[in-house]
């Protein structure tokens, strides 16, 4: 506790009006009249330390939030490595790598901005924050193109997963109810309708899964070709099932089109990158706010903690991406 510094007499209202939670004071020079000192703190350094501790705790909760997802990722990948292997082949490693570089550079500019704030270098601070913000825009822009491509090709989460596969379209033109759901494919019964209704894990139920009636046979469920099921790869049909989702042994190639439940990979992909993207947006909002305040000239060596704390947050966002990139893009 910084009780060595003389008590301050700063007016409470001035401090209240101009800073967000967690914002605190800067160096404790003992002036005791910094307008950014909130009324309930005794000294600037007490305020700074509080903000810093609070931010670290908050980052801890963020890591735990993502930690739950990482843990789930580990369990699902352990249970179904073939899904992850098949799914990741649709990601664009080049764009992912570029995004990694963009975020790393933005972390560098952020650290630079913090240093400029500490040395009262206002122009450097503004430049650093601007570049960081641009990095954020760059990242989100590339992410936008990646997402659009995935969505356009039908690699969507859950029941919206419907990969556009030319062969599939050619084979089942009537499967309007859902590309993936057309042919029933299950090992337990040769009759497709019965197979679909026994609820066995099968790609054919992808489209039906989200509905309340998973047991209802999918429409157009009477194709002549009956596919083999996951439990009986020996009885694979001569003709690969139309729709491309018949259960097959893992790693069957063809970009994983033949692996069941690949939609799970894209669900995880969108959850992880989506949650991360929300955090990037939040970080960009914070940086924009910092930029506004820097232009106004709020920050100096006497008071720079919002920059410092915002920087910590931005580094965490980068750090999470450092884990996401190999986990999602570099499975091979």
């Amino acid at each position, binding site marked *: 506790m910084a009780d060595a510094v003389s008590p301050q007499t700063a007016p409470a209202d001035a401090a209240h009006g101009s800073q967000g939670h967690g914002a605190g004071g800067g160096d404790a020079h003992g002036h005791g009249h910094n307008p950014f000192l909130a009324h309930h703190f005794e000294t600037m350094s007490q305020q700074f330390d509080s903000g810093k501790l*609070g931010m670290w705790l908050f980052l801890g*909760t963020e890591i735990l*939030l993502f930690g739950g997802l990482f843990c789930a990722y580990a369990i699902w990948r352990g249970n179904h490595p073939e899904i992850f292997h098949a799914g990741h082949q649709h990601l664009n490693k080049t764009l992912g790598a570029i995004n990694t570089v963009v975020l790393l550079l933005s972390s560098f500019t952020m650290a630079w901005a913090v240093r400029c704030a500490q040395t009262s270098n206002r122009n450097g601070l503004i430049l650093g924050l601007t570049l960081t913000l641009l990095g954020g825009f760059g990242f989100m822009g590339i992410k936008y193109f990646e997402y659009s491509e995935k969505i356009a090709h039908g690699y969507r989460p859950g029941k919206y997963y419907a990969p556009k596969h030319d062969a599939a379209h050619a084979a089942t033109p009537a499967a309007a109810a859902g590309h993936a759901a057309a042919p029933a494919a299950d090992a337990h019964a040769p009759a497709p309708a019965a197979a679909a209704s026994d609820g066995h894990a099968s790609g054919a139920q992808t489209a039906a899964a989200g509905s309340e009636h998973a047991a209802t046979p999918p429409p157009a469920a009477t194709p002549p070709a009956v596919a083999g099921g996951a439990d009986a790869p020996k009885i694979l049909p001569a003709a690969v099932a139309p729709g491309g989702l018949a259960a097959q042994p893992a790693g069957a190639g063809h970009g994983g089109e033949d692996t069941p439940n690949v939609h799970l990979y894209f669900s995880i992909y969108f959850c992880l990158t989506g949650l991360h993207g929300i955090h990037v947006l939040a970080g960009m909002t914070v940086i924009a706010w910092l930029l506004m305040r820097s232009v106004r000239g709020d920050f100096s060596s006497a008071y720079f903690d919002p920059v410092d704390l915002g920087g910590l947050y931005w580094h965490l966002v980068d750090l999470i991406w450092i884990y996401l990139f190999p986990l999602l893009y570099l499975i091979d």
Partner: protein
Amino acid sequence: MASISVPGAIAGQPARSKANYLNASSGFLSWAFTLDHKRIGVMYLVGIFTAFLLGGLFALLVRTELLTPGPTITTHDWYNRFFTLHGAIMVFIVIIPGIPAALGNFALPIMIGAKDVAFPRLNLASFYMWVIGTLFAISTLAFGAVDTGWTFYTPYSTKYAFNGMIPVVAGAFILGFSSIFTGLNFIVTIHKLRAPGMGWFGLPLFLWSLYATALVQILATPVLGITLLLLLVERTLGVGFFNPELGGDPVLFQHFFWFYSHPAVYIMILPAMGVMSELISVFSHKHIFGYKFIAFSSVAIALLGFLVWGHHMFVSGQSNLVGMIFSAITFTIAVPSAIKVFNWLATMYKGSISLNSPMLYALSFMWIFGIGGLTGLFLGTMATDVHLHDTYFVVAHFHYVMAGTIFVLFGGIHYWWPKMTGKMFNEPLARLSCLLLFVGFNVTFFTQFMMGSHGMPRRYYNYPAQFQMYHQISSAGSYIMGLGVILMVGYLLHSLARGRKAPDNPWGGATFEWRTSSPPPVENFHEQPVVDDLYDYEKLFWDEQAGGYVRREVPDGAARPAH
């Protein structure tokens, strides 16, 4: 350590003006946008108590429905919704935020001699998150109401349950973040804003328990957040995270859920134990016994609480080895819990006990928690749990623990009521109300132990006639409790209008909040209190004129026990 000057004291005003935090400003906006931790605490209290009445109403509906086998007042669908709403409201909206957010918010900064929590704006934001989360959760009634039970087990919750699931889960998600931010705020406040000279072992024990609680809130709640998010995604997008048909794993949901929800039990019980330590010591007028043991046992409970979640899943397809490990760790939690109880008993031993209403609640809790804790051992033992799992025995057990904390919440409300409102309530009625609650509680739930050990499953709408007597006794007990609560609301409201003005220190407490006026001024203190032993009652003397206790300095040479 020397005391320091107080910047909060406004120059030119007498030390004791009539201004306090309640009348310093007025109007709706002065409350809606207040950053004063005391006002935020009071708003929490009003909100939580209202939610408690709503949750209690659903409980009475459930108990009334169970008076007879088969339909009594409603259909089985609505019965399912009633017990779900009762559970979800009581757990997420009432008990988890109850003591920390309402009483803790009010008392914590005063108890460490600070002017406010570290992040007042975040504190207000937490409150509004609580409000929004609550509105979300209750809005489920408009969507047909959720009927999954408060645990939201998959795949029922994601595939089959009514759409009312979505607002409830979203509400619980938001409430979780309210809880995280409150915990974060408290940890930073306790670390950074203690009065000069107040070391960690000079803290009131309530704050040790709030600190331990905040650790759990911060470390466990984010995992619940992500779990509920996945549940929402699975529900809305048809993803199969927890659906084995689609490559997911339903047991994973249970692991995630209990990784939060078991520690959440300690979010509920730890603050209650902290209030207990204050009440027992103050009303025994005796120094707390075993300060460090109580303090460290709070932290021990918080940490061990993270390692026992698997005992909810003994019959969920967990391996026997894992079950045994979880079972063993579960037993070890009994040790720090018992340390607390024995220290409270030792504090009371040869104390000068005042049986005021807060103390009556504290003693009720000792009885109730004793039974709740010991019956937990039956459930933590794998062999007996197979028999007792999902029976009324479990229902009775967790009510003895979790609803036991409600007794401490009430005890705390009565204890700090004079400080919060500046008014005294009707003490004889308060004692009567406590008696009604205690008797009603035991009639309600002790019966359920018997019914459960005879095999009555929980959550069932219908039952064989052999259980009817138990159910009727249990329902009768719940009505007695209802009466007690109504009586309490009555005399507390009456005290606001007609209550005698409260003295600064009506009970003889030595912690800082009793050294300022009732109600406290906006900046909490007229003059910064000097840090000394907060459990030393030697300097407190009853003063007839003040109607309360006053501090008189004992000359240095006088006999004073060394602590």
